[in-house]
């Protein structure tokens, strides 16, 4: 099989790689969005210390390279705690936390962009803090956050390609393997690039659709 030309099986290989990339992307996005949003809720309830701690951790996660975080989790943590971490586990853990950090920032600023007056109105009419969050803040914050979240997720999809470095056989790693075998880098990386592009485009379109639905109430503002 050395230096062989492309064969039909390569399509399966590419699709498998794409599957791994998308699985990792979807699961880490889900965990990241839920975790980031939960942390923002903790901040809303003004839990003491938690806020400072969350701010510190998210700052670290946002301001250091994902690749370094990945190395820390894959090489550093097993060495320190004498535990085994598989490449997929390390990739999952790192990307989920990294996504959560960015989601946290997006959700917090979405919540803060909502007028205090409406929140006061809710409180005056006897809504609890939770009811205000649920009925007044959350629906609007979700609408505000959808745009930035979509942009973040498109970016996080690209970031998943870094995990090929620690040996996860994702789409990029498959590209690497095919490239080694066929020695046709232009074709291989074009195909891989187009696959990423298509996946990203679907995410962006879905995000745009959701955003338009959620902001229907402001359509007449002429903004």
């Amino acid at each position, binding site marked *: 099989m050395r230096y062989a030309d492309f064969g039909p099986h390569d399509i399966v290989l590419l699709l498998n790689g794409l599957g791994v990339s998308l699985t990792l992307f979807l699961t880490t996005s889900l965990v990241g969005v839920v975790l980031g949003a939960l942390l923002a809720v903790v901040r809303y309830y003004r839990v003491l210390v938690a806020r400072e701690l969350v701010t510190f951790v998210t700052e670290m996660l946002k301001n250091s390279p994902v690749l370094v975080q990945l190395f820390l989790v894959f090489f550093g943590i097993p060495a320190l705690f004498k535990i085994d971490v598989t490449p997929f586990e390390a990739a999952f853990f790192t990307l989920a936390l990294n996504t959560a950090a960015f989601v946290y920032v997006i959700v917090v600023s979405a919540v803060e962009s909502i007028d205090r007056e409406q929140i006061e109105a809710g409180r005056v009419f*006897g*809504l609890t803090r939770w009811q205000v969050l649920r*009925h*007044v803040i959350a629906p609007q914050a979700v609408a505000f956050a959808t745009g930035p979240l979509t942009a973040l997720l498109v970016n996080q999809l690209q970031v998943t390609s870094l995990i090929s470095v620690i040996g996860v056989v994702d789409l990029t790693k498959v590209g690497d393997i095919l490239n080694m075998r066929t020695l046709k880098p232009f074709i291989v990386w074009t195909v891989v690039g187009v696959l990423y592009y298509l996946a990203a485009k679907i995410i962006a379109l879905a995000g745009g659709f959701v955003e338009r639905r959620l902001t229907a109430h402001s359509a007449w*503002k002429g903004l």
Partner: protein
Amino acid sequence: MIRIENLKKAFGKVTVLDGIDLSIEPGEVVSILGSSGSGKSTLIRCINGLERIDAGRITVDDFDVSNPKELAEARKRSGTVFQLFNLYPHLSALRNVTLAPVEVLKRNAAEAEKEGRALLESVGLGDRADAYPAQLSGGQRQRVGICRALAMKPRYLLLDEVTSALDPEMTAEVLEILADLTGRGTTMIFVTHEVAFARSISDRIVFLDQGRLLVDLPCETFFAEDGGMANARVAQFLSKMRKD
């Protein structure tokens, strides 16, 4: 009854309310007048629990607003209409009106909706029930704001300059609704710069000046030469208002 005793409120070092005593009986319409910065809005915000008070006591039907456990009950009894409407922009006019009845009073959604529609109908917004705030004029928004407060069937209605963000035509349409409410025996605490209107609907007029309650008189007495007008600050305020 709303009872305010020796209320004090400061923002940092600035004392904004300085020993206010005031009681409002059910059925009364009390207007609060006073120049800008005299503390009128702050007084309203203390009554509905949006500001923490520094000293004194406020009770609404004997529920102490400073006590977190009693505040919820106090709030069920008073409804606030805001200067800038403060509607929920993502909810239709009808949902703005029904949110609190359904969530706080645990009313049945269909019933609340029926009553909400009837309320909107009564202020001439029957056909705008499904519009979002952004699709309504200022006057229409404030009418929704009034319905939202009335939907909770409050004993006391707190109104803070509810027409000052509106042009004269819209002001007239909102004042008409308020005049109608006083005719039906709603208790109102009415902060306003509309002196003529206050005079026409109020039982009592309270005058605030630099955080102090300077005058608290029956409406007719307040405007009499030997009544409220005998107070230099009141006379000065009223003559200034007439010029505007």
